[in-house]
């Protein structure tokens, strides 16, 4: 055990020069990562809102499809779903313009299910008295939802939504397996060429981490804003 430990080549752990030299190339990959992540999160939020509200409907035509959707998307690996979209659909004659589009579609549709559950639980956590007060003031369902319920539900939904956003950013790395040249793919290219996997993947990991730190900063800012009406 001790012998093995002594054999570790610490000098190979991280090659700063390689990391610095390949950084511009990796940042190009990061751009693609962020494009996929931002578009996916945007669509996943909108779709998640619609599906989450449909899931709460008393009408079976709305809540049954919503339940089925959420069940399927949460129950299948994102990578498998992306394979179905990118390698499966062309078999039946449906082809995406580019792998990036396929990745955005895959990530959006998959994470919409998670967002739907966040939306649902956040809306349900707003006290029933808020609905009743709005009803006695003759506000209709969508006015109440838009003006009274959603602003309060947003505060509750912020932390889990930002969890999902970080998962989306990291989940885009799966697009590398369908040839999208995003951050992980770029890192792998350099790793393959230089035979220094350690440096390249650590660099990639640090870049993902940094992006998530920035996202976390925005989360803090938004939470402060949405908590301003509470005294403690």
């Amino acid at each position, binding site marked *: 055990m001790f012998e093995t430990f002594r054999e570790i080549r610490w000098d190979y752990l991280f090659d700063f020069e390689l990391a610095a030299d390949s950084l511009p190339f990796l940042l190009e990959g990061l751009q693609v990562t962020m494009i996929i992540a931002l578009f996916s999160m945007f669509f996943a939020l909108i779709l998640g809102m619609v599906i989450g509200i449909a899931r709460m409907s008393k009408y079976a035509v709305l809540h049954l499809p919503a339940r089925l959707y959420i069940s399927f998307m949460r129950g299948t690996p994102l990578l498998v779903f992306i394979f179905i979209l990118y390698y499966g659909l062309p078999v039946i004659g449906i082809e995406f313009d580019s792998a990036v589009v396929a990745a955005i579609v895959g990530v959006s549709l998959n994470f919409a299910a998670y967002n739907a559950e966040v939306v649902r639980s956040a809306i349900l956590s707003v*006290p029933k*008295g*808020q609905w*009743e*007060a*709005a*009803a*006695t*003031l*003759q*506000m*209709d369902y969508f*006015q109440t939802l838009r*003006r*009274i319920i959603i*602003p*309060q539900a947003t*505060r509750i939904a912020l932390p889990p939504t930002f969890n999902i956003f970080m998962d989306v950013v990291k989940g885009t790395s799966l697009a590398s397996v369908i040839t999208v040249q995003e951050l992980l793919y770029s890192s792998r290219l350099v790793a393959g060429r230089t035979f220094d996997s350690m440096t390249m993947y650590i660099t990639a990991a640090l870049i993902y981490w940094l992006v998530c730190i920035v996202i976390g900063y925005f989360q803090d800012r938004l939470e402060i804003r949405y908590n*301003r*009406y*509470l*005294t403690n």
Partner: protein
Amino acid sequence: MITVKNLKKSFDDTPVLKSIDLQVEKGDVVCLVGASGSGKTTLLRCLNLLETPDEGSIRIGDKEVQFGEKPLTKKDTKEIRHYSGMVFQGFHLFPHMTLIDNITEAPLTAKEQDKDTIMQEAHALLEKVGLSEHKDKYPDALSGGQQQRAAIARALMMHPDVMLFDEPTSALDPQLVREVLKVIESLAKEGQTMVIVTHEMNFARRIADKAFFMGDGYIVEEGPADQVLADPKEDRTREFLALLEDE
């Protein structure tokens, strides 16, 4: 103003209202009293259809609805609610809005009046309930008594023909009860029609024209408030009032 006939309501299989008849005239201040579980809050909540009765009918203003034959339409519900305003035990102010936004939200979305008129009225109402200086505060920064006064102003903004109060002071610390009762009393003096579920017997005796004593899903006794609440005919009413005296 309000006519309730043969109203019945069960939750699951438990009957809560067993054939209620009740009449409220315009300008009346009516108190519903009775032990908890007697159905008074449910009755009040049926008047604005927060609960849907199983059977019977409610007429309020010019609108009459029959229950039990066909399901309520959204239009029925809307028209019935148009006549009443509600004040809840737990206030239910909108926590994410300042007081002034709380009370102007509904009238501004209803768009029955122009904005200037609504804002003027809102300021006047806040002045009346003594909250002008707090108009830009959020509910969470106010005491329960202040929140409840704001909730009353919010309901009044919709010009209801009838104000419904569901135990408006039960959630308040004792020292805050009086300021809320004073606001309600001033409305009574202005001739506002009101139905009040309350345990404040002295208050009820002072301001109510009529009192209904409920027990077990029925109206056990009704009559002028000072008679029902001071010199009741029915044993059950007497027992209930005696229990309150003991407290």
